[in-house]
């Protein structure tokens, strides 16, 4: 449910209202929409912490390097690599 809110444009760690409806289609193509119901959804940051293990920290699994989240709207939940 949180995913619906995030996809609909509601920010993380916020509350917003999402509208739902049913679209029904017959085998011949007639379409009907149900009346709308609303659900208030409180979101969270749907991200796990990520750690990096490598030569820069001696390949020590007990001392991993934590990767920092970039919470800027145009970067949040995106992965960049080079």
């Amino acid at each position, binding site marked *: *449910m*949180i*995913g*619906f809110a995030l*996809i*609909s*444009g*509601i920010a993380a760690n916020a509350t*917003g*209202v*999402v*509208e*739902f*409806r*049913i*679209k*029904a*289609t*017959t*085998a*011949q*193509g*007639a*379409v*009907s*929409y*149900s*009346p*709308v*119901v*609303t*659900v*208030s*959804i*409180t979101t*969270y*940051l*749907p*991200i*796990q912490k990520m750690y990096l293990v490598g030569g820069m920290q001696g390949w020590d699994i007990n001392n991993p390097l934590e990767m920092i989240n970039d919470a800027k709207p145009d970067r949040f939940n995106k992965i960049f690599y080079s």
Partner: protein
Amino acid sequence: MKKFLKFFSLVAVAVLGLAACEKLDDLPYYNLGNDITLSVAPSSVTPTLQDTSSNVLNFSWTSPKYATDTANYKFIIQIDSAGKNFANPTTKTVMGSLGASYTGGEMNNILLNYGFALGATVSLEARVISSYGNNNEQRTSNTVGFTISSFDHPAILTSENTAVTGTLATAGDHSNTFNWTSAFQTYTGNVTYELQYDAAGNSFASPHSVSVGVNMNTISFNQG
């Protein structure tokens, strides 16, 4: 004398043969029936959802006057798109009655199965074929035309919860279930459902959707 005896013997055999025949009663005669005249009322109708179980179209026809009890009269009503010469008719069979009615739901099913656009006014034709119960002596009535439109019969959606929340740690836990009644409830074909959603106030201008499936009436989601 020999010729006379021979002739007499032949006559005697013929007489005895005829005398041995048994005369049967006349065979029963079942008449071919009369032409039947069909009429429809009203000739134009616009049913609504409230007419789903109510009669909206009434057909009546004259008696073919078959030589049997009226309970054994058989009538097949055929309905098809106007001008199609009943190439693909929908049928309804009634016994012993000189009329039949269709509910709004029945007509909606017919219109939806023909693939007419929802709410569009279309021209249909009907005729009745009468016969004895064993289909003998079929008589086809005149054709009557009428106009009719289909109506929307939307699903009614309900949500288990009006407000939900969650945490990353419980993202896999159950959050909410949506249920809905079947759309087009008198329609006999398959109905495919999808759940659409959008932020409030967007009026579903660019809705997102989750495919649900054919003839399904529920779907559940976890918190994530």
